[in-house]
């Protein structure tokens, strides 16, 4: 796991220098401009090191340091103080509160790296081969919940994934499991008795083995107070009950930092294809839209400037799909991409039922959509595909006929 470094300094210039200095190392960097922001990041990310400025507005470094030392989980996070105000008295004052080291500004970048290297294992990026895990890679998920129905609901909902979903009913069993197995994600029910979820969270975070393991909370949708408490403690994501399984899967993948792009995108020699899933909740729209920007940018770099939005898996077109397609169209327009839609007869019909989508025209297959792009023409500026979309009479044809014609 990459070490996390939190930089807390009100000077954007100093933060920029620190980021530039550390960017050649394999670490995750978070930035905060004052103590309040710093504490929020520290709670959420539980960093391995905090580089902390002293003089800052809103909450200064000394106050933040005191709050860190009073925090059950964060008190053990090493702090490297960075200050323009040296002097023996200042240093002694800071040391008494508890810092691992300090540096007085102005500072040499290499000295800073040396000091950081003494506190955390800092490896240069070239030393580390980073291959992000994909959505198709196996992973172990541990559910900590004493309600068998919830457990089986999740296990069934994730059956189609390569993930191994295990369950235990209490915190003790969870800790035993985590000692013996490499766990990629823990889902804890916040309804465990005696605030067991929070105790377990702290125990997992204080263990070397699970310090970085993402932890999600399972919580009843209406229980806002406990959600807030869990957020403050630092749970990575929340899944509300009743469980939306698509939402759960998206959040689980995000928590495990899996590359999900292969599920929705494929790049062909001359175009990229975005395949929309049948169910399209808000979390998925955001995720796919974010990925689309990256995919389209990569495609532009590779000399591709055509995209197909494939809705063949969509049984019923809903607002989620429409939002996603509109977002995608905008991204393509911004980058000068030509695009075309592919969909079933049912989708075409659904499309005509919405004001925003009534003019959308679909091709029955990716091959036909590809054929519609005029070669060597400047990118189209309209939403409609370039040539001969699906004929109106095709609306009467069964969906299967179009699928057969897909190339």
């Amino acid at each position, binding site marked *: 796991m990459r070490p996390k470094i939190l930089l807390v300094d009100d*000077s954007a210039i*100093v933060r920029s220098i620190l980021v530039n200095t550390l960017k050649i190392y394999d670490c995750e960097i978070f930035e905060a401009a004052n103590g309040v922001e710093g504490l929020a990041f520290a709670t959420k990310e539980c960093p391995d090191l905090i580089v902390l400025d002293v003089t800052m507005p809103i909450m200064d470094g000394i106050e933040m340091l005191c709050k860190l030392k009073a925090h059950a989980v964060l008190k053990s996070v090493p702090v490297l103080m960075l200050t*323009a105000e040296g*002097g023996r008295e200042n240093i002694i004052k800071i040391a008494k509160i508890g810092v691992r080291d300090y540096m007085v500004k*102005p500072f040499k970048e290499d000295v800073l790296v040396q000091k950081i290297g003494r506190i955390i294992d800092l490896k240069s990026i070239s030393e580390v081969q980073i291959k992000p895990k994909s959505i198709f890679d196996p992973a172990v998920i541990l559910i900590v919940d004493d309600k068998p129905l919830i457990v089986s609901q999740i296990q069934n909902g994730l059956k189609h994934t390569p993930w191994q979903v295990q369950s235990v009913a209490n915190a003790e069993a969870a800790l035993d499991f985590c000692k013996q197995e490499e766990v990629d994600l823990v889902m804890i029910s916040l309804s465990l008795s005696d605030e067991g979820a929070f105790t377990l969270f702290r125990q997992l975070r204080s263990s070397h083995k699970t310090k970085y393991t993402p932890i999600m909370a399972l919580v009843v949708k209406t229980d806002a107070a406990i959600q807030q408490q869990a957020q403050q403690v630092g749970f990575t994501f929340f899944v509300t009950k009743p469980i939306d399984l698509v939402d759960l899967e998206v959040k689980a993948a995000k928590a495990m930092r899996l590359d999900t792009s292969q599920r929705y995108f494929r790049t062909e020699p001359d175009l990229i294809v975005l395949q929309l899933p049948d169910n399209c909740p808000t979390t998925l729209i955001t995720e796919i839209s974010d990925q689309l920007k990256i995919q389209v940018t990569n495609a532009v770099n590779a000399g591709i400037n055509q995209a197909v939005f494939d809705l063949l898996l969509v049984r019923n077109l809903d607002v989620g799909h429409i939002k996603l397609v509109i977002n995608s169209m905008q991204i393509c327009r911004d980058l000068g991409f030509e695009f075309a839609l592919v969909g079933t007869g049912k989708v075409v019909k659904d499309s005509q039922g919405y004001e925003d989508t009534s003019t959308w025209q679909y091709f029955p297959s990716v091959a036909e959509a590809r054929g519609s792009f005029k070669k060597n023409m400047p990118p189209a500026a309209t939403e409609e595909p370039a040539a001969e979309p699906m004929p109106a009479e095709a609306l009467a044809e069964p969906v299967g006929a179009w699928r057969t014609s897909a190339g």
Partner: protein
Amino acid sequence: MASIQAIDNGVLDLSIDRAVQAVFRTMIGKPARIVPTLMDPSNYTVKLEQIHVVGTAGVVGDLTGLIYLYFSQPLAEYCASRMLGLSLLKIASTGEKVVNEVVGELTNMTLGTFKNQLVELGLPCRLTLPTVQRGVYVQTRPSRAHRPPLLPV
């Protein structure tokens, strides 16, 4: 007040010189030298006829005062370029904000280093937050102080 009287201008000059040297050597990677005066001695006024970026910060305590660091626009951009590792062209295209922030930070560091020396000399004091101004005609009219402003080059 007794301690202030005990320190002479030579010591202050040396402390300021050391602070400027240390900050510019460390952060910019270049030596700096102090230009003794830009002040009109008849009215203690500094008048500049080209765009300058001026960083100001003060110390408050046993010794109280302000220090002004005057950067010509090209010098300020050069410092920003060195500190951020960006080309001068890139710095010029990012606008005034980045350059101002760099001048503010250099001022803060210089004052911090100066203040640390004062503390070692038995003059405890605190720093004020730096401010940055820029303009073609920058005039500084000290009310009582008799210290010349500094221009690192």
